[in-house]
């Protein structure tokens, strides 16, 4: 009656569980909207308001009066000179002449980071509602239970990042001269790796938790440091030494750098390789830890 010992796919249930989480999300457009509204506000307000390039235009700086007074054509020359200094300063600081593009790409890391951070919450809910116990009583591989959570978070993150990129483009993101649509493959690869690593961490934190308050506290504690101690909004090289050290172990830095190189900059192959190496190691290490620990800790 119950001879199910035929060749059963060891990954059975993985997609079913992933799809369950995704369905809850795409069947509910409000959640989807709320997920991307914050990065859009950031882009719109911070990205557009911090019009750093405009600081150095001749219109915004009244030139000091000197003797003899400058001739009108000299004023124009100085104005041009100033704005080329500004562009140069922007370029050397942000790698691109406009701050909006710089931070809009950072926002892709931001939305991926946020989605991953909240991925632990659904684990907590599944445990509290008894769903997890029901799943644990079925022959689904324990690792699949965890991987389903990770994959659904990754897919959500990538879809939201795509929407953010699309909106950023509409708001005036200017891609680099070397950009080709093929670069997007690299962008997705980088975002895939970081969301996989980050959601593994946050799901691991949630693996035995029954309190969403704890999850919220952890997310609140980590989201600002992860974002500001990275190059998502501001270049790390201008930060104090100690902060730079933190940015160097912050995976958000590497994901942002990789996506910026692929979208905005002229690619530095050496740096890009380091980015991907770091992100790859980050994703593999934490998802492996997740699978190993799920064997031990999903059931008590």
């Amino acid at each position: 009656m119950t001879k199910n010992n035929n060749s059963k796919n060891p990954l059975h249930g993985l997609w079913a569980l992933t799809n369950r989480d995704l369905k809850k999300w795409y069947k509910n457009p409000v959640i989807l909207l709320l997920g991307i509204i914050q990065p859009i506000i950031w882009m719109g307000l911070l990205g557009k308001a911090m019009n750093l390039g405009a600081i150095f235009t001749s219109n915004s700086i009244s030139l000091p009066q000197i003797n003899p007074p400058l001739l009108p054509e000299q004023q124009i020359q100085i104005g041009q000179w100033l704005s080329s200094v500004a562009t140069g300063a922007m370029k050397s600081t942000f790698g691109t002449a406009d701050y909006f593009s710089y931070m809009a790409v950072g926002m892709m890391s931001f939305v991926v980071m946020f989605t991953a951070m909240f991925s632990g919450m659904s684990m907590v809910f599944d445990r509290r509602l008894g769903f997890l116990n029901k799943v644990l009583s079925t022959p689904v591989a324990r690792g699949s239970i965890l991987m389903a959570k990770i994959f659904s978070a990754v897919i959500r993150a990538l879809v939201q990042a795509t929407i953010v990129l699309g909106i950023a483009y509409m708001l005036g993101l200017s891609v680099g001269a070397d950009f080709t649509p093929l670069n997007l493959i690299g962008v997705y690869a980088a975002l895939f790796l970081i969301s996989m690593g980050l959601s593994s961490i946050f799901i691991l934190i949630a693996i035995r938790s029954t309190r969403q308050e704890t999850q919220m506290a952890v997310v609140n504690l980590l989201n600002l440091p992860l974002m500001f101690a990275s190059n998502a909004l501001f270049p790390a090289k201008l930060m104090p030494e100690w902060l730079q050290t933190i940015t160097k172990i912050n995976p958000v830095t590497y994901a942002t750098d990789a996506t910026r190189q692929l979208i905005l900059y002229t690619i530095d192959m050496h740096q890009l390789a380091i980015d991907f190496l770091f992100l790859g190691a980050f994703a593999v290490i934490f998802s492996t830890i997740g699978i190993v620990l799920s064997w031990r800790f999903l059931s008590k």
Partner: protein
Amino acid sequence: MAGDALIVSGLTKVFNKNLVAVDHVDFTVKEGEIFGFLGPNGAGKTTTINMLITVLRPTDGSAVVCGHDIVKDASGVRDCIGVVPQEYTADEDLTGYENVILCADLYGIPRNESKKRAEELLELVELIKFKDKQVATYSGGMRRRLELACGLINRPHVFFLDEPTLGLDVQTRAATWNYIKLLKKEYGMTIFMTTHYLEEADMLCDRIAIIDYGKIITMGTPNDLKEGLGGDIMTLSIQDSEEDISDLIKEVPRVKEVKKQEGAYRIKVIDGEETAPIIIDAVRAGGHKVTRLSLTKPTLDEVYLEYTGRSIREEEESREGFRAQRIAMRKARGERTRGGH
């Protein structure tokens, strides 16, 4: 081993090193039997079930479910069992049908087969009309039936039901009982269930174990347990009840025990119908007048009272310490703490 669907020996679960939830429990359940765990909330019923369905690891002892050890061959166990948990675990955002298919996928049942079974089972639990409605719109009874359908999707050998009628109204409860009886009759399924409703245990179970504070206190068929009390219960009141006439009643042959409770005498007698007139005569001869008399065949409540020293109904609202233990246990199990149920 043949003939035993469940062999449990010395099964123990200790939470946080000091909270003993299940304390060396031994029992066997025969093929095709409905076996019930009866006990108050916090007695260790759910913890026992969670160990048997491989969700919790036992601290000590072992159990074999349809030939598979729950620790050494957990996946063997998982293949042959179906579970209906205490909570409503169906996903509210999905439809009833999608939920059943999800369960099928968790067992790795191929899609063409699972579609067929889902239709069959939803038909069985009379949800076929609502199969494409979101579960959020279902009533409590419908959700419980949906849980039954999900639990049956892999055609389990042993079916675990944790408080199957908790929180249901009277009609829905009766309907649920019918489904459970049907499963036994039609499929010869072995069923292990927990309950704290006496009438439920009495009505459904072939055998019952009464469990309290993690220990099995007594075990047997409902009838055996009742007869094990050794007689019927007679309650008798007399006019002018200043004087204690317990000793007078005790002298009547076949009276086993007399207790005076709130002005009435609770008398345990053998062959109540025949002994009652003799008792009345004896009371009269002692110069007292009988004002009230009732005779009841023992119910499981009496059995429960006899073995635990308290009535199962009373304890729902009383006993602070007991309540605290219950909450501690739920916490340890990692569930939501609910005040009462």
